[in-house]
């Protein structure tokens, strides 16, 4: 995949997560997709990750993936971003994260996500 294709795939993916568009996300995941996050150190499957996204989106009024800085490499992309969240009760919080994604033939085959779970409990005042 070219640099441009990888960047477009990255943006499509995060736009779809923001919208809670699980159909598009499912299209973007390769059949053998795997997801890993530094919070648990465990690998989850395509279906497990889609279920997590579906359950997670119901908990929030809005979440946006802002300030996306994308770099591409031969087999995938790196994206650094801030996540801004609004709960149904109106509470806001933010944290910084990054994703390293492996891609093939227009789809994402693997994601490694790194974030700081301690930020989930803090108010937005001290965050980005």
């Amino acid at each position, binding site marked *: 995949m070219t640099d441009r294709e990888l960047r477009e795939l990255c943006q499509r993916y995060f736009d779809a997560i923001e919208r809670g568009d699980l159909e598009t996300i499912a299209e973007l995941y390769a059949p053998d997709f795997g997801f890993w996050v530094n919070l648990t*150190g465990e690998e989850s499957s395509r279906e497990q990750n889609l279920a997590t996204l579906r359950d997670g989106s119901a908990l929030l009024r809005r979440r946006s993936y802002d300030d996306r800085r994308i770099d591409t490499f031969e087999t995938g992309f790196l994206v650094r971003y801030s996540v801004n969240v609004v709960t149904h009760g109106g509470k806001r919080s933010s944290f910084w994260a990054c994703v390293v994604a492996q891609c093939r033939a227009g789809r994402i085959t693997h994601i490694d996500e790194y*974030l700081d779970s301690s930020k989930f409990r803090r108010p937005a005042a001290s965050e980005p």
Partner: protein
Amino acid sequence: MTDGEIRELCNRFFDAYQDRRVDELAEIYAPDCIVWHNVFGRETSGAENLAALPKSYAGQRRRTYDDRTIHTFAGGFVIQYTLHGVQHDGHRGALWICIVGLCRNGRITRIDEYMDSSKFAAWAGRKR
């Protein structure tokens, strides 16, 4: 810088960090190097980072930066690794970390570090 040069610089940086060779780290950091962490959300200078290292190193008997997965892109690298630490009382812990390094003329100009601070206490063998 070429892919090979960036990879060598990345490994040289982590080898020096692991072996506590602060003088070599000072050579690797560009004069205007900036270090940023997702845990604190603030930038520090390379000089400030180096000045904090002796105290930081004193906290553990040994640290190793293992399982390094490196990808390079135009202007830098992303490295995913496991930080293994052995405390002075023998406690062993591991953290999963991702660093994005920007490079210029054989030196590192910026480091963005992503990790989960909720794991620090377990890593160090402390109660929360």
